[in-house]
């Protein structure tokens, strides 16, 4: 079938309209965003966390997180005296509504926000049978919910408990580091709403990112380093009792 001028007159306007929608979904919609120029992580500055729960609420609002499941949550620790190995921990509703007054007295008390660590060597992407979860070229571990089978193997394999199965889509879900925001030059919803700067997005490939200086001048850890996941969420002043 030969394409006549008449066909072109009909097709071109439709294509032009459609193209706008095609582009809107691509990273090229933020035309300056190049995948290879970024390597995302996060800094959690624990001495600044006040357990307000803003981050949990913001994440839920930004990402339509279903009730009872958490892409991020905050834990409260009570460590009595020298008993580092037996902390009392609670996380009422993940910290969604903040924390009620502590029942314990004395000891050491602090908050620890948690989220997906976007591990460079993630055990969850290793076990996915079909390639529905992966680490993007810019360092964010994501789930392709159109491809996920819902086998739950990745949920089992995550040492940090940050994954869950969405009750409606029946696919795996977790923190995406607000990928739809960071690719447009914005910060994540949790960092945006954190009032004290306890959570800060970090681009490890950006030489101007303050994380580099911070990592050099502070005592920084990752969660469960023995798992060798090469987590990219760095905790400043992480206590030894934190699980």
């Amino acid at each position, binding site marked *: 079938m030969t394409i006549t001028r008449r066909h072109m007159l009909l097709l071109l306007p439709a294509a032009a309209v459609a193209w706008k929608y095609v582009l809107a979904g691509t990273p090229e919609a933020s035309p300056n965003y190049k995948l290879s120029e970024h390597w995302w992580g996060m800094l959690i500055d624990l001495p600044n966390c*006040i357990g307000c729960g803003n981050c949990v609420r*913001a994440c839920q609002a930004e990402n339509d997180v279903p009730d009872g499941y958490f892409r991020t949550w905050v834990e*409260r620790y009570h460590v009595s005296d020298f008993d580092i190995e037996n902390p009392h921990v609670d996380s009422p509703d993940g910290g969604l509504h903040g924390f009620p007054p502590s029942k314990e007295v004395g000891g050491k008390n602090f908050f620890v926000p948690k989220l997906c660590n976007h591990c460079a060597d993630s055990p969850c992407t290793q076990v996915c049978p079909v390639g*529905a979860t992966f680490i993007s070229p810019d360092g964010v571990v994501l789930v392709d919910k159109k491809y996920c089978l819902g086998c739950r193997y990745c949920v089992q394999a995550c040492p940090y408990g940050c994954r869950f199965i969405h009750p409606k889509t029946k696919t795996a879900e977790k923190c995406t580091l607000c990928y739809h925001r960071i690719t*447009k030059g*914005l910060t994540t919803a949790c960092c945006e*709403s954190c009032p004290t700067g306890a959570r800060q997005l970090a681009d490890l490939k950006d030489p101007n990112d303050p994380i580099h200086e911070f990592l050099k001048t502070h005592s920084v850890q990752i969660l469960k380093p023995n798992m060798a996941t090469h987590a990219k969420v760095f905790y400043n002043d992480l206590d030894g009792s934190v699980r």
Partner: protein
Amino acid sequence: MHVFKDAGHLFRLAAVFVAGGLAFVGARAFLVPKSFGQYGHYRGDAIADIAARPLNYAGHQACEDCHTGVLEKKKTGKHVHVNCEACHGPLANHAADPASVQPPKLDTAVLCVRCHEANIAKPKSFPQVASTDHSTGLPCDTCHQPHSPAITGETTTGGSK
């Protein structure tokens, strides 16, 4: 070739297996998504799908473009680094169409204690009060202006109803 004599049935079975294998290869050619393998062992289009999610939080830059007065006020106080939506909630739809979407009015009696209610797990240096003792039930903006909360002598225009 006497080993192949009387083995006709085996060749038939082998043919069934080969046919099955070819059918599989054929089906694979058009069932595997086109963008699969573009960046790694996953559907390359998934990255675009995920990046195309709509925003609910506008980000403080969007607020500051219009609300310059509030920005200046904030710079005089301790809340300078508290982003607008940390208190006002997600307002991307207001930033996109300011006239038709009005942000809800905040109730300081509920809002402020989320951060400032005293708790032993909060850092000692963080300003926190036992609200019942501190304000005897009055809403916080009776005395404090949220955008620059230090009490300087001038009071606010009154608490929220």
